[in-house]
């Protein structure tokens, strides 16, 4: 054989060797160098995750009574992978199901679509959970339907019915408390995206705060404020799947961690009283007519706050109009939401107590009086209180023109004399330099800020309003913001107005503001002193301010929550009272003011005398201040009644406000009196602490006990004997249709807190025991429910 052949064979050998080495090299790169990358890819291939939601923590009142618990709802779910395996892609099954549920085929189809570009509906109607998780398509279905679905498996392949935990508003004593409790809503894509970006940026998010698609999160009230702690951590089941996405096994499982319980300072019974009395005040206002006319007060809204002045605990707080928070359970419908937000409904979602801003009127005189006393004005006076006073060419009337003559400071406050404050305010203004101020002290404005007006109280509820103090600083800020607009209007006028006279008037005002808008005029100071004009406050701010006066000058941050307890009863966090300020008023002056305000109810000339006639003031002196706010833009006056008691050793502050409700004394005061009667157990003029709505006659100091299984222990909780256990057994035998299995009902106040009983439980297990724990009183929501506003 030739040399050439030998040579070429040798070359061939080398070539073949290089092929072998190439393969080994590549193999080494894949399996040793990049093993991690491919292991991650393989894991993404092979595992799917199914999330078991955690049971959300309960919200309890201060005695442990559940305000919000969980109940079980019968839910129909559809497994999309199972449908996909069917010949017609599940069309026949869906049609059957739609017919059984009484809805259209398309509405179910849309529910099964994954949210995204191609989905026909937006969340929460489309599905934004894992594709391997059964999609719930209907909630609160009847037991009969659930049984049909579970028994006729061949008719409903891929469809299942089971129990799922949803929020239940326990309403002990008929409590509504919607604005305190809030509601849940599904997490949205924006929030998930924000979180994704944060995680991508390397931010660490603790597991209990981590949002997952399909999570329900607090959207208002305590549910929102304490969402992280209430939500718990869902359990995750790691399933291994094959190429056809059939589950081949479980690769790991973590159990859900139930959310923590939130214990509030709210006393459910007192809350119920407060809500009822607020509603009574609204009705009272509507029954009254404006003085000198036959026009009834509109009394369109109102709020009441009951606070412990010694620590800022909010014992009760209500706002009217309210709504039934359970409309949010299982997703609010379009109709319901538009009804809730309609103008006619008068924004029931808005909490007047913390978000509403109203003219404080005479209730603001605690500020003016404090400022006056701290700046040399004497208690004795006397101060002239004419029917009207002309300052800087402008005539200021006393309220409704009364003229009691010269008064002491005490009596001036008791009769709510306005004209004496006009003089004092004018004096302050002149001392500050008048129209050409030099380093003004702004005594009233600063005192108002010391009382906490003009800034958020810091209550543990979302979206609180800060209100405003209509003093020099506010005027300057508004001038800076609006100056350019005013000056434009001063030139251009209001051509868009059809009313020529109004356009001319507004143009003149704009022109005036453009030139002089930054000047703090005497009229501004006068308005400030009597709580009129630009000043606006929330009822909660008033309660905080009166509490400070009552307790000797400490501003406590109002707190709804008192502590966080784990679902097994262990204390997680005790929420301590928080001081946020100290009044710059001497103890003597505060004591004087407390006494002065107590005369509002005790002296015949006091504006609150009539409302408290017969009240045992000797035992429980009540310090109070009426307020009748003259709101602008043709609104009727705002009724205020701001109080604390006992005036000599204050414990509670009660503030009630009714918008467009008339006088404080006439509309709000009788309701506030009723609240005090409930607190102290007063019948007629007898004080009996055992009849107090508060257990033991005062707020409790301890946190309630929660058993290891998550059941809170509270006075008056139903015992086993008081429960109606229903007929179980004979007809509940396996194989029977189960329709005869009686509904088990329990008494109204029974909580359903046990985590094991609120999770998703296999329906057959419950049916076998003849036990599907739905309350008789549970309101089934018709699919096209109309608005459900709340009234006691």
């Amino acid at each position, binding site marked *: *054989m*030739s040399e*050439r*052949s*030998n040579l*070429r*064979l040798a*070359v*061939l*050998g080398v070539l*073949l*060797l290089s*092929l*072998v080495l*190439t*393969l*080994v090299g*590549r*193999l*080494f790169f*894949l*399996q*040793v160098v*990049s*093993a991690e*990358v*491919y*292991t991650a*890819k*393989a894991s993404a*291939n*092979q595992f799917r995750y199914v999330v078991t939601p955690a049971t959300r923590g309960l919200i309890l009142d201060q005695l442990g009574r559940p305000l919000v618990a969980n109940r079980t709802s019968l839910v129909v779910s559809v497994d999309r992978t199972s449908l996909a395996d069917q010949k017609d892609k599940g069309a026949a099954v869906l049609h059957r199901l739609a017919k059984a549920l009484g809805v259209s085929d398309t509405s179910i189809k849309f529910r099964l679509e994954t949210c995204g570009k191609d989905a026909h509906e937006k969340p929460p109607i489309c599905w934004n959970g894992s594709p391997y998780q059964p999609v719930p398509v209907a909630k609160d279905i009847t037991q009969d339907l659930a049984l049909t679905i579970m028994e006729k498996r061949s008719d409903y392949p891929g469809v299942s019915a089971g129990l799922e935990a949803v929020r239940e508003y326990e309403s002990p004593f008929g409590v509504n408390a919607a604005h305190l409790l809030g509601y849940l809503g599904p997490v949205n894509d924006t929030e998930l995206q924000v979180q994704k970006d944060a995680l991508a940026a390397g931010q660490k998010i603790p597991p209990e705060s981590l949002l997952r698609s399909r999570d329900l999160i607090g959207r208002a009230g305590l549910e929102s404020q304490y969402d992280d702690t209430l939500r718990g951590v869902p359990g995750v089941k790691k399933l*291994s*799947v*094959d*190429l*056809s996405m059939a589950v*081949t096994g479980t690769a790991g499982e973590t159990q859900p961690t139930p959310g923590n319980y939130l214990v509030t300072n709210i006393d459910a019974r007192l809350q119920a009283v407060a809500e009822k009395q607020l509603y009574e005040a609204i009705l009272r206002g509507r029954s009254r007519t404006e003085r000198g006319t036959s026009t009834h007060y509109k009394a369109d809204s109102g709020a009441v706050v009951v606070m412990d002045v010694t620590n800022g605990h909010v014992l009760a707080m209500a706002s009217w109009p309210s709504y039934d928070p359970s409309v949010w359970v299982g997703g609010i419908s379009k109709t319901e939401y538009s009804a809730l937000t309609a103008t006619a409904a008068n924004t029931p979602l808005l909490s007047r107590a913390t978000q509403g801003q109203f003219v404080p009127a005479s209730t603001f005189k605690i500020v003016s009086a404090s400022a006056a006393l701290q700046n040399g004005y004497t208690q004795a006076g006397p101060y002239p209180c004419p029917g009207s006073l002309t300052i800087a060419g402008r005539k200021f009337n006393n309220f409704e023109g009364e003229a009691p003559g010269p008064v002491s400071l005490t009596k001036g406050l008791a009769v709510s004399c306005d004209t004496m404050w006009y003089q004092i305010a004018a004096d302050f203004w002149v001392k500050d330099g008048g129209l050409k101020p030099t380093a003004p002290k702004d005594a009233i404005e600063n005192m108002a800020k010391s009382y906490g007006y003009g800034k958020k109280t810091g209550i543990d509820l979302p979206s609180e309003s800060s209100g405003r103090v209509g003093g020099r600083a506010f005027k300057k800020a508004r001038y800076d913001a609006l100056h350019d607009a005013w000056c434009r209007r001063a030139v251009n006028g209001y051509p868009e107005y059809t009313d020529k006279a109004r356009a001319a008037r507004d143009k003149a005002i704009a022109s005036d503001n453009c030139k002089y808008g930054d000047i703090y005029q005497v009229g501004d100071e006068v308005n400030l002193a009597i709580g009129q004009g630009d000043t606006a406050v929330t009822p909660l701010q008033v309660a905080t301010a009166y509490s400070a006066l009552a307790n000797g000058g400490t501003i406590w941050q109002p707190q709804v929550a008192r502590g966080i307890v784990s679902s097994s009863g262990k204390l997680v966090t005790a929420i301590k009272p928080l001081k946020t300020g100290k009044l710059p008023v001497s103890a003597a002056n505060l004591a004087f003011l407390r006494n002065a305000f107590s005369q509002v109810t005790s002296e015949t000339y006091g504006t609150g005398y009539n409302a408290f006639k017969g009240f045992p003031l000797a035992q429980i002196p009540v310090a109070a201040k009426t307020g009748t706010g003259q709101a602008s833009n043709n609104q009727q006056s705002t009724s205020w009644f701001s109080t604390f008691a006992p005036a000599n050793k204050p414990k509670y502050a009660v503030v009630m406000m009714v918008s467009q409700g008339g006088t404080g004394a006439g509309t709000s005061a009788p309701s506030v009196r009723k609240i005090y009667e409930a607190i102290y157990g007063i019948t007629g003029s007898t004080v009996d602490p055992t009849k107090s709505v508060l257990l033991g006659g005062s707020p409790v100091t301890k946190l309630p006990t929660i058993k290891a299984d998550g059941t809170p222990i509270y006075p008056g909780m139903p015992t086993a004997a008081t429960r109606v256990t229903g007929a179980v057994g004979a007809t509940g035998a396996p194989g029977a249709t189960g329709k005869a299995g009686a509904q088990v009902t329990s008494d109204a106040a029974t909580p359903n807190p046990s985590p094991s009983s609120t999770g998703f439980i296999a329906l057959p297990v419950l049916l076998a025991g003849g036990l599907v724990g739905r309350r008789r009183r549970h309101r089934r929501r018709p699919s096209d429910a109309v608005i459900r506003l709340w009234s006691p």
Partner: protein
Amino acid sequence: MTLTYPTAGTQRRRSQSWLAKIDWSLVVAALALSIIGALLVWSATKGTQIEKGLDPDGFFKKHLLNIVIGVGLCILISRFDYRLLRAYTPFLWGASILGLLFVLVKGSTINGAKAWISLPAGFTLQPSEFAKIAIILGMAMLLSEKRDAENEPRDIDVAYALGVAGVPIALIMLQPDLGTVMVIACMVFGIVAVSGAKARWLTGILVGGVVVAYVAIQTGLLKDYQLARLTAFTNPDANGRTSGFNTQQARIAIGSGGLFGTGLFHGPQTQGHFVPENQTDFVYSVAGEELGFVGAAGIVLLLGFILWRAVRIALRASDLFGRLVATGVAVWIAFQAFENIGMNLGITPVTGVPLPFVSYGGTSMFASWLAIGLLLNVHMRAQE
């Protein structure tokens, strides 16, 4: 004692010797690959078989049976003096051409290629595998014809030899089975090169190959899916059920195997059926995932060992015919294995050729063992 009787000794050596003259290391390597293949096929198919309610060990048993038949064929062909084999070569070649024609008319289509003849009891036969042997023998015969004092084949011999290869290549092209065509093309080039033919023939074959490929692509002779498959490996992250899916999943399987693998029957990618065709074309991914780098590299090294033995046999062959046969076998096994493993590793196009000895499939197994038989034959004759 035997030494004193040279003739008798020679006689005796010849008669007792065929077992002694066998290259046992070659046989052991091929057998080891076949057994590993059986285990991998078993692991790849057991789950699916159970799901289908079939014998879980069905593929395993069939693969073992194929090995037995293959080894039988190997013994048969190695016992046959290849110099006699030359005489039968024209008939063998003719038979393979008939087989290829038959498959074009009545063959079954699998994965787009009409390459299989269905036999009773679910067996199939792939004539192109046997055509490889016919081409090797035919070319070796023509290129090693006795010449007058010339060491190198004459141009006319080379031309004939290329003609002998060209007909079956054309028929296989029509199936179309590009992978096999590529293997045969390499084989032809190797045989012509080692035959000592003039260098211009080699250049000619290379240029011709490029031209044919260009024309095939330009004129649309290649169908879109074939082109897509060929180019898929250049886009390794093609997602979903596209052409890149198989290779991507195979690569994930192999990459996630790491150094020692997940253990036989324990690879999630394999057992979850993420890699389609993982008992045939993608059987190597099973080795990568379940046996890890150690096992997968072991397979490559065993193949490398076989190639080393084949080249060694070619070097030591007693005549040019033997050398060319051994060369043909070496190039065949080398390029087919490279194509197959390379496609599993994502460095060569997806062409659908089986991995010799390892992939499930009777014809491939028989052809592989026939190739070993040819090597043994050449090896034994060289010792006489």
